[in-house]
């Protein structure tokens, strides 16, 4: 770990402004991902801006009848919130499928969105990784790639985004509220927050330098059966091989997003038109451009079968 300086920000705008003055700065909230990465020198920020003191830890009802989730709301608290459990079950279930109780107690809403990939080559600084050291190559291509992306990947990077929460938020059409260094605020649709790797896999989001997430908004509840199904080798504390977040209405229409298959939560709205016709048709469209490796080709069948089980569960 490299030495770093540290400050506590007093307001979101001040935090953003401070970050924009220091390109080597990072925000720190729960620290469940960043501290590990710093210890391994995968992340080497020279300055940390602690945002834990910002009053961003409330869950409020919005005028539109949705929810605004403060960026610092802990995963445990979000999963347990009565409104979330009642109206956004897919989100509560996704949160509880992630990490461990101890980590969820620390991990924040914004931090969860911004967590970095678990590709083992990203984690080993002796190995080439375009995400960690741009231009050095990708060791996962041609290497151990069982966990890796099957869609939306590139010649530069086949990493996945590891979040469960983000997959549910993608199905819920969440909005990401931010503040920029100049104090201006905006809302980014979650579909546009995470980028595909392309030839710049080290740039993972559309956030501008210094831009700070302040809240996540959920539109007013859409009802339906809300299911999150995470498939993994062990029963807990493992990243998804494939996960499915689904909201299924009585008439069989609805929304689905996949986790564990791409560099971002994977949802193609057009594919949802196929939902009444069943999982095969939806999966065919969702994964039409899939380019799996030999080791992770099973994810295509797994995604289709998991989606099938989820749709059957929604019906039954």
């Amino acid at each position, binding site marked *: 770990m490299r030495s770093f300086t540290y400050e506590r920000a007093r307001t979101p705008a001040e935090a953003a402004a401070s970050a924009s003055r220091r390109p080597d700065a990072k925000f720190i909230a729960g620290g469940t991902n960043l501290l590990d990465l710093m*210890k391994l020198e995968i992340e080497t920020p020279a300055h940390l801006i602690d945002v834990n003191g910002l009053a961003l830890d409330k869950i409020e009802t919005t005028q539109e009848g949705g929810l605004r989730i403060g960026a610092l709301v802990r995963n445990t608290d979000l999963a347990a919130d009565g409104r979330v459990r009642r109206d956004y079950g897919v989100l509560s279930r996704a949160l509880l499928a992630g990490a461990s109780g101890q980590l969820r107690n620390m991990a924040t809403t914004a931090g969860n969105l911004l967590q970095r990939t678990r590709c083992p080559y990203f984690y080993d600084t*002796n190995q080439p990784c375009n995400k960690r050291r741009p231009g050095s190559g990708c060791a996962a291509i041609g290497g151990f790639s069982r966990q890796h992306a099957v869609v939306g990947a590139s010649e530069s990077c086949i990493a996945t985004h590891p979040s469960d929460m983000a997959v549910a938020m993608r199905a819920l059409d969440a909005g990401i509220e931010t503040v920029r260094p100049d104090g201006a605020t905006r809302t980014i649709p979650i579909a546009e927050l995470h980028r595909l790797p392309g030839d710049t896999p080290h740039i993972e989001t559309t956030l501008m330098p210094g831009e700070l997430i302040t809240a996540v908004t959920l539109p007013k509840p859409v009802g339906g059966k809300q299911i999150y199904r995470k498939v993994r080798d062990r029963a807990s504390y493992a990243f998804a*091989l494939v996960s499915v977040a689904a909201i299924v209405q009585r008439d069989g229409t609805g929304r689905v997003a996949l986790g564990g298959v791409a560099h971002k939560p994977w949802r193609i709205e057009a594919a949802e038109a196929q939902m009444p016709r069943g999982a095969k048709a939806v999966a065919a469209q969702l994964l039409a451009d899939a380019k799996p490796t030999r080791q992770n080709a099973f994810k295509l069948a797994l995604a289709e*079968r998991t989606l099938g089980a989820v749709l059957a569960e929604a019906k039954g």
Partner: protein
Amino acid sequence: MRFETPATTNPIDQLTVIGKPIDRIDGPLKTTGTARYGYEHHEAVPNPAYGYVVGSAIAKGRIADMDLAAVKAAPGVRAIVTADNAGKLGKGERNTATLLGGPEIEHYHQAIALVVADTFEQARAAAGLVHVDYVKAEGAFDLAAVKDTGEPRPLFGGPADTALGDFSGAFAAAPVQLDATYTTPDQAHAMMEPHASIAAWTGDKLTLWTSNQMIAWGVGDVAKTLGIPKENVRLISPFVGGGFGGKLFVRSDALLAALGARAAGRPVKVALQRPLMFNNTTHRPATIQRIRIGATRDGKITAIGHEEWSGNLPGGRPEGAVSQTRLLYAGANRMTATRLAALNLAEGNAMRAPGEASGMMALEIAIDEMAEKLGIDPIEFRILNDTQIDPEKPARPFSQRQLTECFRAGADRFGWSKRNPQPGKVRDGRWTIGIGTAAAFRNNLLVKSAARVRLDNNSTVTVETDMTDIGTGSYTIIAQTAAEMMGVPLEKVVVRLGDSTFPVSSGSGGQFGGNNSTAGVYAACVKLREAIAQKLGFNSAEAEFADGEVRSGNRKVPLAQAAGEGGLTAEDGIEYGDLDKKYQQSTFGAHFVEVGVDVATAEIRVRRMLAVCAAGRILNPKTARSQVIGAMTMGVGAALMEELVVDKRAGFFVNHDLAAYEVPVHADIPHQDMIFLDETDPMSSPMKAKGVAELGICGVAAAVANAVYNATGVRVRDYPITLDKLLEQMPNVG
């Protein structure tokens, strides 16, 4: 004490303390965080410097240049140890690769430097500034690709190959045949406590607080590596946070702490950082195993052959996966073969039941497959081919062998008769259910072991031996032994372990620690009893030790009084004759597993487990049960998830942390049932005990595999059994 003839009745048979499910006596220390582990001897070493290990970034080749300028200039740095400045180093007898590499690199993450600084953070930061230029060399990293270059290698002191009768002819002539190949992956011990040591020099004498299973081996190998007399090395390892064979040998933490302390001129502590644990230390090597079985139509095995290929660094040992096949089932025509190829991965070495755990993973699937071909119940097939004699050396009977009894008792308890032998026929909602079984088998090893026992004038009995407690319960069973022998309550026994100034014990490994170390304490106690009797003028053969008194005829003397002001001390050990040559000593069991496989996703979850074990006298059913259920858990890991994934290009285990190397979590382990059959084995020692800690893992993975087959009809022969290996053959859904 020499143990040369079968044990007769002795004070242990009273079973007033021995055989009771006593809570571990070191439990309060552990639950209050006051047990001191290798890195934590703060009282003994209040102001150490901190070492941080730098591992090689390549698997094979050499260091062309190492630039340490930035490291030297970093804050707090006190010393940097490299092969360049460490002086001449030897290599431990039990190490395959050197513990400090350079300029030659033998494997990935081989230690190449230790940076010592005032604080851990400074050492870690400075270690990040080490700049190394490497010249890479070609290496061999793919067992399947090099297996045919493998050569015969002796197996645990026995021959590489064995043969009896005419295997080829009998196999060819057998009306029912199986010829199948199985693979097991490299596996990591993945113990919670990493390798960790604190080193302090006083003049030319070294003290190492460390985490080690075999103290005397460690002293010898530290001395040999440093080129100093053994007398100048003291090892202290009172508590070990998991070893599983990974701490049988001193590793780089110990050597580098010693070198770092010498260079820095003050005590140094070193813990291997978790990402180094998987490539810097040892692991259970991968195997490829071919098994051929021929049988008559009524299920008598006529030919059984087992061949193993494994790989290791040059000079390393084979895994030994054929060893149980030499002993487990009858059959007149037999062969086994062991081939070892050179690989440039980290050193392969012992992990919980080395050889047998890997071998049983394959053999017990093969037996299940064969039973199915024959149309015979898998339990009945095993019982049909049970043997009371060593099948390769028919003159040697087993000392005790209750394999059939284990299966009968287990079948009854688990409800085996309700199993549908047709795969894929039992459903429970989204789960397809299967039941599987496998034999458990692990040899019992006799290893000499000594102890010192002291009786004080307050009737406290203090036992000292360099035996270790790696979480197994050694403290407790040793205290029980001394209490039983000396006729004092357990609270009057103090047990001190894991210090090389104490008499040399068996150490902990190969499930030999329990029986042998307590037998050593037994021997020392017999000597102490004689000393007490002699002092009191009692006939030692008639003296009884009970209730804190010595009695003979109508005389009785409190032990405190017998000890006198100065107390009495006795030291002795157990040494063995040839009872293990005349009799095959092994432990047996039967594992039963029920799994559910998700019909859609093929996720496998274990629903119920049972182990029935017959392993001699059980000294403490509570600690023994803990050993067995822990081993069953490890077996589930081996079956379903554990695999060190080899990057065959760069030559290293890729998933080198506990996030990526998955072991079972609580949610993976259901209710575990286990029972011990009544058994005493007078051939094993005066304790009449054997070991259980490795028996518990042997066969578990195969029982899971057989249950998965019963649930799905998919036979997976390559571990771990992950859902991707089932998916294509699962029924269509939706």
